[in-house]
């Protein structure tokens, strides 16, 4: 849709490029206004939004080889392995696995995150690329991402470990007690351990 609109705008702009004298008439002036002002603004905005949507795809994140191991960790055959169990059981959309749990990463975060995203591109192509096991979050994982789905769910609200002490649930919900780093659900990507893991092979769709 968007590429077709861009191609159409280019074709109209080509008319002005080849026949600029057509703008001497009123009809030509109106014709020029669309491909040189209105349509570029419209297709540019639509194109930007399309790219933003595409960048939420798992495939987009894994297109940088630094992330390959994090992508592999989604296939670990261990129900306690948090990202893998969410991915394999479709608790998150598999085609948007990364973005669903990392909603404030690089271009989706604040201005500092956006600048970090640009720095990642610089480091990836020009700097010293870190080992996958050295890739860490800049700030502790925010419980907000977990609570977006789990808050209000019976299994979460009535979970034994969540209700063991009256102060636990408020601490989780206020992000004072981390879901991941407090020793409860700390089996996140752990790419350094992948060589010791078994992997699940999803069934192939039948022809």
């Amino acid at each position, binding site marked *: 849709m968007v590429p077709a609109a861009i191609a159409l705008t*280019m074709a109209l702009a080509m008319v002005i490029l080849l026949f600029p004298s057509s703008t001497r008439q009123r009809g030509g002036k109106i014709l*020029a206004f669309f491909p*040189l002002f209105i349509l570029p603004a419209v297709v540019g905005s639509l194109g*930007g939004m399309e790219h933003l949507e595409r960048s939420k*795809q798992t495939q987009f994140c894994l297109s940088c080889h630094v992330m390959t191991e994090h992508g592999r960790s989604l296939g670990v055959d261990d129900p306690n392995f948090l990202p893998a169990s969410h991915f394999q059981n479709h608790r998150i959309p598999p085609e948007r696995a990364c973005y669903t749990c990392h909603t404030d990463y690089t271009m989706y975060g604040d201005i500092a995150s956006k600048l970090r995203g640009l720095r990642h591109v610089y480091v990836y192509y020009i700097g010293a690329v870190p080992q996958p096991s050295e890739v860490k979050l800049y700030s502790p994982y925010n419980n907000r991402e977990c609570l977006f789905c789990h808050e209000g769910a019976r299994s979460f609200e009535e979970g034994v470990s969540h209700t063991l002490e009256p102060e636990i649930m408020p601490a989780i919900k206020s992000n004072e007690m981390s879901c991941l780093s407090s020793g409860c659900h700390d089996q996140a990507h752990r790419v350094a351990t992948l060589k010791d893991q078994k992997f699940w092979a999803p069934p192939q769709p039948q022809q």
Partner: protein
Amino acid sequence: MNETLQLKVENKLRLASTLVIAGLGLQLLTFLSNHPLAFLAFIFIGSPLVLAGTVLYLWSLMTAHD
């Protein structure tokens, strides 16, 4: 509008069209790939080219009656 001024405006329109076509062409190519570089090329190369063409077009309108 005299002929000389008209030709100047048409030259600006040619340049504006070229910039817009170049920018849009690059934006179109970025849709062939789902990669961070394609996104950056769209934002930091394609869009400024289109913007430059559009600004030049508007400038040609403003100076058409000088």
